[in-house]
């Protein structure tokens, strides 16, 4: 079709040398994004990659697109400005757990509330990497870090339930090294109109190695992860014998298929498009299994659509068509 389709992930590599620590989860994410961009039917010059501050925020330098490495916490607000000014662009915000949920928390919830049509990649490594190992708003309660030598006394945010609680129209979760799954999610994000939040569980090999290994280890992952797909039953486990049902209190519960008369037909079908956020919220909060994939994806008018629709409406009947009209509008008088 277009020349676009001949591009490969290599075309999205910039000349800048990748400076992340060897083994850092960011490297696999970069590969997934470059691959996904090459697959999208968007001319290269229309991508804008906006980041804040942190290890993950070096990302734009490694992408051969328009990029803006901004200031700590503010990527959400800056990306909101970019998208609102030029809705034609495909805007990608790269951020981390500290950048988005601590210093930038306010912008994060408000870009969600407004349903700004940006795609947010939230690299969650549960630590401050760039500043060398202080606890973050997603570090576990009691976690020992440089600034919590006796363990933190703070409860962590769950980025999923936080986003969904703030009204996110799209939330997905993935693991850094699952490049193939992540590419799929990235492609879905691009199609989604309105904000898409993608929490990527990312391993910081230096300061928080193995933070996610409880459910990412080879031996356990099948039993501790659930990859949801819209319209499919929420089944997981090495032998595909576990699933989710609702208990008497309408809470999600893990059951074993074949036990207590439970069959595959009893397992809940994932409905990412359900406008009610209640189940999505619970899915995001589940600890075991950790739910991956697109948890929520619903339609709602995005911010720029509403902005420009209003402008068009006003302009249709407006008296002032230009600055000169405005300057001489209202009460004026002539001195001769």
């Amino acid at each position: 079709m277009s020349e676009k389709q001949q591009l490969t992930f290599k075309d999205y590599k910039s000349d800048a040398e990748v400076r992340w620590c060897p083994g850092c989860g960011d490297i696999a994410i970069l590969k997934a994004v470059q691959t996904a961009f090459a697959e999208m039917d968007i001319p290269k010059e229309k991508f804008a990659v906006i980041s804040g501050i942190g290890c993950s925020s070096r990302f734009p330098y490694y992408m051969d697109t328009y990029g803006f490495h901004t200031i700590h916490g503010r990527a959400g607000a800056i990306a909101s400005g970019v998208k609102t000014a030029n809705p034609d662009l495909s805007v990608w915000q790269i951020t981390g757990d500290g950048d988005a949920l601590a210093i930038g928390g306010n912008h994060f919830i408000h870009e969600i509330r407004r349903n700004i049509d940006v795609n947010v990649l939230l690299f969650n490594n549960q630590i401050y990497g760039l500043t060398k190992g202080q606890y973050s708003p997603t570090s576990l309660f009691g976690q020992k870090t440089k600034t919590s030598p006796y363990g933190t006394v703070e409860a962590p945010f769950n980025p999923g339930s936080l986003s969904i609680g703030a009204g996110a129209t799209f939330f997905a979760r993935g693991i850094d090294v699952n490049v193939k799954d992540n590419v799929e999610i990235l492609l879905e994000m691009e199609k989604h109109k309105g904000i898409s939040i993608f929490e990527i569980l990312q391993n910081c090999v230096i300061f928080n190695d193995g933070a996610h290994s409880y459910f990412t280890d080879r031996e356990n992952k099948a039993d501790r992860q659930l990859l949801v797909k819209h319209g499919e039953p929420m089944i997981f486990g090495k032998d595909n014998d576990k699933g989710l049902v609702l208990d008497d209190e309408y809470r999600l519960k893990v059951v074993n298929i074949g036990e207590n008369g439970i069959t595959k037909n009893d397992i809940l079908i994932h409905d990412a498009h359900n406008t009610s956020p209640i189940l999505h919220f619970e899915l995001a909060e589940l600890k075991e299994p950790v739910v991956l994939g697109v948890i929520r994806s619903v339609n709602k008018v995005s911010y720029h659509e509403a902005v420009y629709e209003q402008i068009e409406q006003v302009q249709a009947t407006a008296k002032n068509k230009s600055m000169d009209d405005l300057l001489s509008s209202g009460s004026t008088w002539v001195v001769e």
Partner: protein
Amino acid sequence: METKKPIIEKEHVVIKFTGDSGDGMQLTGHQFSDTSALMGNEVVTFPDYPAEIRAPKGTIGGVSGFQLNIGKDEVRTPGDFVDVLVAMNPAALKANRQWLKAGGTLIVDIDAFTEKNLNKVECVNPFDNDDLDGVQIIKAPMTKMVQEALVDSGLDNKSILRSRNMVALGIAYWLFQRDLSYTEDYLREKFSKKPEVAQANIDAVKAGYNFGENLQYIRSYKVNRAFITPGTYRNINGNLATAWGLLAAAEKANLPLFLGSYPITPASEILQEISNRKDLGAVSFQAEDEIAGIATSIGASFAGHFACTSTSGPGLALKSEAVNLAIIAELPLVIVDVQRGGPSTGLPTKPEQSDLLQALWGRNGASPIPVIAASTPSDCFEYAFNAGKIAVENMTPVLLLTDGFIANGSQPWKIASMKDLPEIKPRFVKEGKENYFPYERIEGTMVREWAVPGMKNYEHRIGGLEKMAVTGGVSYEPLNHEVMTFERAKKIADIAEQIPEQQVYGKNKGKLLIIGWGGTFGHIYTAYNELLEEGVEVSYTHFNYINPLPKNTEDIFKNFDKILICEMNEGQFLKYLRTEFPQYNYKQYNKIQGYPFTISELKTAIKQNLED
């Protein structure tokens, strides 16, 4: 029997409407000022209102005022002392008595001077003693009058009482023989959906006017028409003029306007006006906080818009890190700071010029930025426009300083015409350029070319980390940082070539040069003129371009024995000038009371400095 009533003929009259903040004094004052302007007077206004939206009724803290100066020739300030004071209650009188001139006129709603209201402000009845001797007093039973006049209006008592201010306006109109038709039209338009309310207000104005007609022994005022340059005029306040100046610059640059902002006194009106300008395609973004206000604007600038943000001192403090991002990224942006009294929340509704040093230096690292200050309500248009032009043509954020005094004050303005404004040329990179480098300087300038997302083949990365000269890659090289620091500084210093030379009123050589900057122009200029008439020889120069300073600044300074800097802060412009040109003999005159200078105090200060 028709007796010809005595008339006081004056060149200037200062009128102040005062009442409770719920009494509608701002509207009353605006009506009087618009009508006076339409009748050919020069007018300058100054609203003076409390920070609390609803301070307790009848208390000094809740007094709201609107002062205006009308005249037959150049009027530059709202005036110091008041010829005619309208006081709707004892609190208003108590708070403003000190400003009423001996021999002036006082109009009160006598119905409001009850024992209860007097007690609220711990005040004896001012009409029982000699405190108001020599003052012409009009005791109007405004409350009763409005109740009688509107008895058949169909409105309830509370709504009727709301029109009390219109009775006061009517009396003031009579006192100055003003035409009522402008206000009648205004009320019909404002209440077009509630004709009964419109009529009630018109009846109240007329009741006041007729009350005046029947007064005995009261001298009315006459202020002749001013000589005004022919043209089409409108009244404009500084905030509106600022918003329009930005819109005009965007139109000239052929760029869509984006304003990201957060409500803050006294700057909110700029955000409100831009939000109203969807007819011109302006995009306003009411952000979640001050930082997001500027951050969204920086995003819009990155995307190729004419971007601006508006705030006041506390908001500027919050924005400072983001200002630096725009500085290092070299993106165009206009930041408007409508200054108010500080520090911290300070005096939100009162003017001060104390953000100057913050504007110049209040950021981390070496962060040069052009600073421009408007000096009158209407020239906010010109300076906002020029701020936009400098930002876009030099790829830099620009700080525009106004203040609560000129932002809320209004004056007639000869409407600008777009064709008379200079061109604004964005520095977009030309199509087909090979090897675009984001930090390559356009030949003969320090300005980089602008490639915005969507332009093919110019994909590049910018950001807050130090950039390699020319290529724009991240660079931690020691020498490169020094080079870039100087490049950024030179870019701003070069703007001196683009701004007008500094003008001097009076002789270019002499004993004393008076200096002002920003919103104090009206007061200092009037004081200077009055001194001139008295034969006092001084010269005056007023700064609008603060950084860089006009290139002839030093040439002016060196011809004077002494330089007196008058500013509404503790001496910030003085500090700045001492840093730039340390060798001159500087003196200072400062006022930090949340009120503008008075002309008389300025004259005294200037004379003292001449004598010393």
